[in-house]
């Protein structure tokens, strides 16, 4: 018995070490990026890499000065929050309707919605660009909000639907027996019970919109550019600005990564799309 206990410990120790090593390897590029952000440009490209150095904040100041980081951050915030709220507003009623008034066509509608996601965004680039230009929505945050909302909508409906589907119908029946109207049903039964679903769907949308790069790159210029577009501007081959690139990148990913860490349980639960009970 004692021997068995000991060998079990060895296994656990090995697994612990392996898990930590793999995890650190996976996040190593991010750590490296974060470190480079606090170096001078010269230290940043020093070979071999210096692991101990005197940190500097000058990169962050320069990023703000050179490219007005705060404007891009504001645009990122507005577009991601705006598209998330608008998306929930449209997706929640639809998902509710599909989950509780299921007909033979529900599955087809769902599949159709998802199939619109299978069309690569680039396929719609020319028309959307032309439409945005004609309606004056090119390079505006409102234009981006609309595009982000529409492109996330199928996933939002699907995700909310898989949540609502698992709410027992008996609860709604009971509420109806007690005389709750549609609004009462929604307000007092669905919202509280579906809160988890709304939260995870909202979280996913925030992340997707914050990180969206295709439309942000192609539909914006100086006014409505988001952080994803700002970082792309650092890819121009005008020399190696690793430290500044790192500082700008760190500023762009930090808010959403930290936000993600704290909400990951909720987010992952939602991402299983009801595949895991």
């Amino acid at each position, binding site marked *: 018995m004692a021997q068995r206990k000991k060998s079990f410990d060895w296994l656990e120790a090995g*697994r*612990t070490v392996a*898990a*930590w090593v*793999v995890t650190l390897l*996976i996040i*190593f*590029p*991010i750590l*490296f990026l974060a470190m480079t952000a606090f170096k001078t440009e010269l230290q940043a490209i020093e*070979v071999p890499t210096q692991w101990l150095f005197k940190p500097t904040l000058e990169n962050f100041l320069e990023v703000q000065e050179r490219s007005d980081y705060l404007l891009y951050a504001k645009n990122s915030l507005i577009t991601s929050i705006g598209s998330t709220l608008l998306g929930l507003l*449209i997706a929640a009623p*639809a998902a*509710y*309707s*599909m989950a*509780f*008034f*299921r007909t033979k066509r529900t599955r087809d509608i769902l599949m159709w919605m998802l199939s*619109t*996601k299978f*069309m*690569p*965004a*680039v*396929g*719609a*680039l*020319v*028309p959307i660009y032309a*439409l945005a230009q004609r309606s004056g929505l090119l390079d505006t945050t409102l234009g981006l909000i609309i595009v982000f909302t*529409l492109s996330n*909508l199928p*996933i939002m409906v699907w995700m909310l639907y898989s949540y609502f589907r698992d709410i027992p*119908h008996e609860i709604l*029946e009971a509420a109806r027996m007690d005389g709750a109207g*549609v609004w009462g049903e929604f307000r007092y039964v669905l919202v509280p019970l579906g809160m988890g679903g709304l939260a995870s769907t909202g979280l996913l949308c925030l*992340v997707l919109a914050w*990180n969206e*790069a*295709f439309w942000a790159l192609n539909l914006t210029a100086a006014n409505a550019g988001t*952080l*994803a577009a700002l*970082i*792309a501007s*650092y*890819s121009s081959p005008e020399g*190696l600005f690793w430290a500044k*690139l*790192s500082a700008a*990148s760190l500023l762009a*990913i930090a808010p959403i*990564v930290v936000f993600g860490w704290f909400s*990951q349980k909720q987010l*992952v639960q939602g991402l*299983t*799309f009801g*595949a*895991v*009970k």
Partner: protein
Amino acid sequence: MQQTAAPLDVPRSAAARGTQRSAPRLLPRLLMAPAVTTLFLWMIVPLVMTIYFSLIRYNLMQPGPDEFTGLANFEFFVTDPSFLTSVGNTLLLIGSVIVITVVGGIALALLVNDPFPGRGVVRMLLISPFFIMPTVNALMWKHMMMNPIYGVFAQIAEFFGATPIDFMADWPLLSIIIMVAWQWLPFACLIFITALASMNREQLEAARMDGANYLQQLRFMYLPHMARSIAVVIMIEMIFLLSVFAEIYTTTGGGPGDASTNVAFLIFKQALLNFDAGVASAGALLAVVLANIVAVFLIRMIGKNLD
């Protein structure tokens, strides 16, 4: 997880029929209307415009009257040698990333499945790459990891006396695959961890008692249990991988030559670098067809695991 898709459907639709009779039929449609209408417009308006553009001569740099050209744009796009290369690259990219993330994700999930010191922190750190925006992901890998002189990989190679690899020049598609797989591995892994958490411990224990070795446990207990989540992971990744764009745009620019150009990027090149919106639209329609072939294939394959 005692519920599976099929038995779930039966009582539900019966219940739904019940509610349907007692509730007004108008309301459900009204609630669905905003989502269905906006998505329909989002799909049909660009589609119709794309079809129209694909049939005319439409160069962004040479405005003029719309001149009907029949299928010339399609012919141009398909006979362009870049076309087949880009289709191949697209499939290779999607296939490799899905294999890497699903296999790697399962392995990683099994590794961190049982409790160990710091499991919560590991879980939290592991998902980080999923939150990194593609442009940052791409530039970080291109410069700091893969640069042939200053990059970390080059330094490791030098340390072992090997010649550093020039990733962007010699292995452009592989570089993109590494970046994208890195982004999606944690996603797959965390979904699988969640799936494993709902496994029936007693059954596993019983299988172990009966002398099932690890491979047998994997084959007969773990994998069947994860089937649905594997389907979901493949489905989601497929949707996002079909339109990988920013990673290519910010690193290789599709090159050298067409070595790392996927269909999405080829269309982009036609539209905004060659200013040929007509050819780009023809390409876009072909991309839609390709995407639908992939989707049908996919839904056939894993569809029953999805609903």
